[in-house]
């Protein structure tokens, strides 16, 4: 997929674990894992907002566009 989720990088920088982040964001750890591994097909703005709020980052820090060509 052209959009890559660099959530694990930001989580490592903020030293936060998956389970803790999931609880603070308000989604299940399973869903967060789906997002982290790049298997998600879509993301709600509310989820993105919550993640950015917890990790104190910008959407561009966790979502990166890579040209497949």
């Amino acid at each position, binding site marked *: 997929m052209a959009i890559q989720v660099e959530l694990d990088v930001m989580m490592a920088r903020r030293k936060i674990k998956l389970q803790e982040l999931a609880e603070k964001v308000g989604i299940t750890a399973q869903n967060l894992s*789906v997002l982290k591994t790049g298997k998600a*097909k879509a993301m*709600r703005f509310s989820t993105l907002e919550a993640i950015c709020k917890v990790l104190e980052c910008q959407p561009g820090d966790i979502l990166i566009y890579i040209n497949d060509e």
Partner: protein
Amino acid sequence: MNAQSYQKLGYLFFLDSFIAKPLCDIILTFAASLYNAPGHHYIAISFTMINLESLFCGAIIIVIAKVMYIGYKLQEEQQLVI
């Protein structure tokens, strides 16, 4: 998987309507006239309400299978929306 099976079942109803039932009619009429005098054997092909019933059932089942398949795709997509 289930949706595909139902779709195949629908197509089987179509086959029944267009092939199986007319074939049965042909064999039945020929068998009934088997002991007639030579030159007086008959075969008959007919398309009656019974065939239309199979056709209608097949169509309904195929529509249901399509709806099931679309529902499955929507659910699969929804599951991957975080």
